């Protein structure tokens, strides 16, 4: 299993972790190098991206962890990350802004009301905005990016059933639905409604998620 440090860039000498340096040092260094993003290095940056073309998940931590902050180990989509986090830091901030998993959205801005920040942690869908990062040491996490990379049939059934319009909430739905299928390989409509009741979609694509989840369930049964 590949292991990555937040602050380590593949193919390069490990650099000092972004999270371990002080704000003063960061500010000093920021003037000398391209910026915090290249120091963070946990994922490619979106620097210079022109529109969407060539864009990659960005990891530019806007917050620096204080010196002496606790270090946690997360397994995200199969890869291990050691990362320093602030004690009050949410898992949402850690995953999105330190590690660059931008599928994790934040519609309700941290109120735990919308489900757009849902990730799967040790098999259960959780709201990452209401989960403290330091409580997640040693946890295995899956995000929509990872579900897509695993070729899970949900991605294709969501596309073909038009389960997204603006798409901002869709990764959260994907995580909740995937978790449902992990627990229940043959969900009825009521099961799907109950599972997805906490995910908000302002475009209101709700009813299309029913056939999408059921088609994915069939595909999984058929070994697709």
């Amino acid at each position, binding site marked *: 299993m590949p292991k990555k440090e937040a602050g380590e860039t593949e193919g390069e000498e490990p650099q000092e972790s972004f999270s371990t340096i002080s*704000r003063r040092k*960061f*500010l000093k260094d920021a003037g000398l190098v*391209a*910026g*915090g*993003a290249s120091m963070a290095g946990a994922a490619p*940056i*979106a*620097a210079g*991206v*022109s*529109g*969407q*073309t060539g864009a990659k998940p*960005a*990891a*530019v931590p*806007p*917050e620096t962890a204080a010196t002496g902050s606790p270090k946690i180990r997360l397994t995200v989509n199969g890869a291990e990350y050691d990362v320093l986090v602030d004690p009050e830091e949410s898992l949402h901030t850690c995953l999105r802004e330190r590690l660059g998993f*931008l*599928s*994790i*959205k934040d*519609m*309700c*801005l941290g*109120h*735990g*009301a*919308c489900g757009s920040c849902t990730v799967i942690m040790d098999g259960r869908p959780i709201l990452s905005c209401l989960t403290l990062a330091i409580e997640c040491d040693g946890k295995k996490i899956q995000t*929509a*990016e990872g579900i*897509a990379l695993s070729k899970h049939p949900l*991605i294709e059934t*969501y*596309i*073909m059933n*038009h389960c*997204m*319009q*603006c*798409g*901002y909430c*869709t*990764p959260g739905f*994907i995580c909740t639905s995937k978790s449902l299928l992990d627990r229940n390989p043959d969900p009825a409509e009521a099961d799907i*409604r*109950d599972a997805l*009741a906490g*995910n*908000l979609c*302002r*475009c*209101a*694509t*709700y*009813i*299309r*998620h029913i056939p999408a989840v059921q088609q994915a369930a069939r595909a999984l049964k058929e070994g697709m």
Partner: protein
Amino acid sequence: MPVYTTLDSYNAIGKRGLRKKDGYEKASGTGLYTRDVYLPGMLYSKMYLCPHPHARIKSLDTKAVEAYPGVKAVFRYDDKWLKDNKWRNFTMWVFSHQTEQLLAEEANWAGEPAGFAVCADTPRICDEALKLAKIEWEILPFELDPEKAVAPNAVILQPHVDPKTNVRHSGSRLFEGYEVHGDVEKGFAESDKIIEFRWSEDETTVAGVEALSCVAAFRGEHLEVWAHNQIPLRTTNILKQYFGNHLHIHVHSLYQGAQFGHENWIVYYTWFPIMACIFAQRTQKPVKLLYDESYFHAGGYEHGAHNFKVGFKKDGTIMAVQDTSVRASAEVHGKLWEGTSIPNLFGTTQIPYINRPAAINYRHGMRSCGVWNNVFFRVAAETGLDPHDVAMKNDGCRGLAMSWVDENVKRPKGFPMVNSLEAVFKAGKEAFGWDEKYHAPGARVLPNGKLHGVGMVHCVAWSPDPNGYFQPNQMGINIQRTTPLVRILARHADGGWNHESTICRVVADELGVKYEDIEFRPFDDTGLDTPAGEGSTGLVRTLPMAIDVARKVRALILAQCTTPTKSGTEPKVVEVPAQFPGLKPEDLDIKEGIVFEKARPENRKTLQQVANYSWQNYPPFIAVSGRQMYHDEVYYMGRQATWVEVEVDTETGEIEIKTVVNSNDVGKCIDPEGVNGQQYGGTYMGLSHGRQDAKVYDPATGVLLNDNLVDYKWFSFNDITGPMNQCIIESGLGYGPYGAIGIGESLGAVTATLLAGAVYNATGKWITDFPITPDKVLKALGKI
């Protein structure tokens, strides 16, 4: 000949099961939104928000803010930049009561960005620094209620504008807010019965999704901006105005967390990016401006109250409608005029200053449709007629009967001789089972003790004005020598309508290529714009251009295939034969990306072979179009209707929404799944407005109390518990391409007031103070 473009056959157009072009990025979370843009060395910016509903700055001390570690710049309301750039307050188009400002000195609503903004290393430092300013406010009187603001004894809120009244006047017809057709007094005199009633709606908001942000970066003589809005071209133009024409300004428009229309956000296309650019210019760093509170402080519906007077005959013929209203934004009574034979209409609106955020509407708004719904269902209730019969009786355009429209519009202009409302009703009523479910008001109690009710609303299906709009509308198509075969060139804001896929469908059929072989990445500033959000139902405006440019490229290809050329330079010039020698363009056809001779289909080349043939001698296949549609006179002949079944709990006052059926005439269906998406999506949003969406203010302080998604709860999955069915009617009665009619706005708007009729049918009580919350139901039932 029809007034619109047609094709002999349709392949990608109207076909189900095509893969959404934006689907993978959105499902996998790999698509980028403005909030997802992070640049090396990027700073962050936030604005101070006024805590009072109406207050003027007496003094502002930002020394502590400026000295706070990590703060890089502070921008104040009294900054010299504002004077140097002759900043003027930006009026929120013509519809709204409010004037927006770049960091107000006098704030007009609680939460308005005011006084100063800060730029710092992190968002957290911004938050901490914003608290350090010392601001002394002069507290001014405030008013939240439009009706109270126009009362004779009202406190004057903007005495420097008008010392006598809060009613705003601009001199424009819309602002004065009247609409007159025929003679209402004559209509009332000819009526068998006249009824009067009141209808009102509370302020709502689009609430949530992707809170506003903007990223700006100066790179030498280039200014690069990532803007969250529907009209990036307008952002470009405004930035040029304030930062100079010498700059090369590139505005990128990434995926957009739902906005549902540009009007409410128009101010954010102007000063919001300006703020990010000012900081980026001063710090020489990329800056991301964050406005987390935006979706609750802005982006709201209009709110207000109407007083109706309706005169009608016993047979359901409506003779006159009068509507006097007081609102926070303009009432447009046009829907009644555009889509009925009612000969006499009078509508007037007062728009006063109040101390709420600028509110216009999104997804069109409930306003015109609320008027429509109330009139028809009320008359049906008063006459004892079925609402469908009342609707059919009064169907028409511009006060004229549909029989007149048949002979004077449809027939001479080549429209199909079909009746849209009849077709819409036939499909929808049957799918809903109206005849079995409709009953006298309050007459059906269910075994679970709840009251059963059904409601129906119909309206014109609108593409408000298919003619050209405010901004240039341009698109290019390029045939590639590699894959993808066809690339569409245009910047186009993606608001979730799946316009990209729809445009690709049209180009595929017009050009003769496979849908899968077309790429449309609409995010970049290509110098060509298809401003999706520039006006309502933008696709009807955009598609004529896609058709035109596809046909131009097709003509280029066929001409080149049949024309010899020369290669090399003097003296070594050789003749290059045509790819299809001896043939004329009309001898060839293109299908599925293959150019072939009609008489001898085996004589064929792929488009890629054609594009690569002697490529050094031929220009690339590329064409650009700015064609838009123009019609001298537009009659709205398409119709739509929605049916709902509810159960009303007489103990709790709760309304459970069961079956919903939509029946929509879209003229010509180009993207069936996209149409369905607007049908059920709009219905969820509309019914949410009808039942529960409302901003709640503290009347004592004027502060918004439910500015988050916990306290402001819009519909989730199980707020509609029963089946939802969608019927699509294709009458060809639209002025758009192939006879298409827009659908993006109409469902959310029309269904918002649908519950009034359904609750009346269930309880026998009219509740027309929206949203219809449980307390209002219980009050109507005499329970509280």
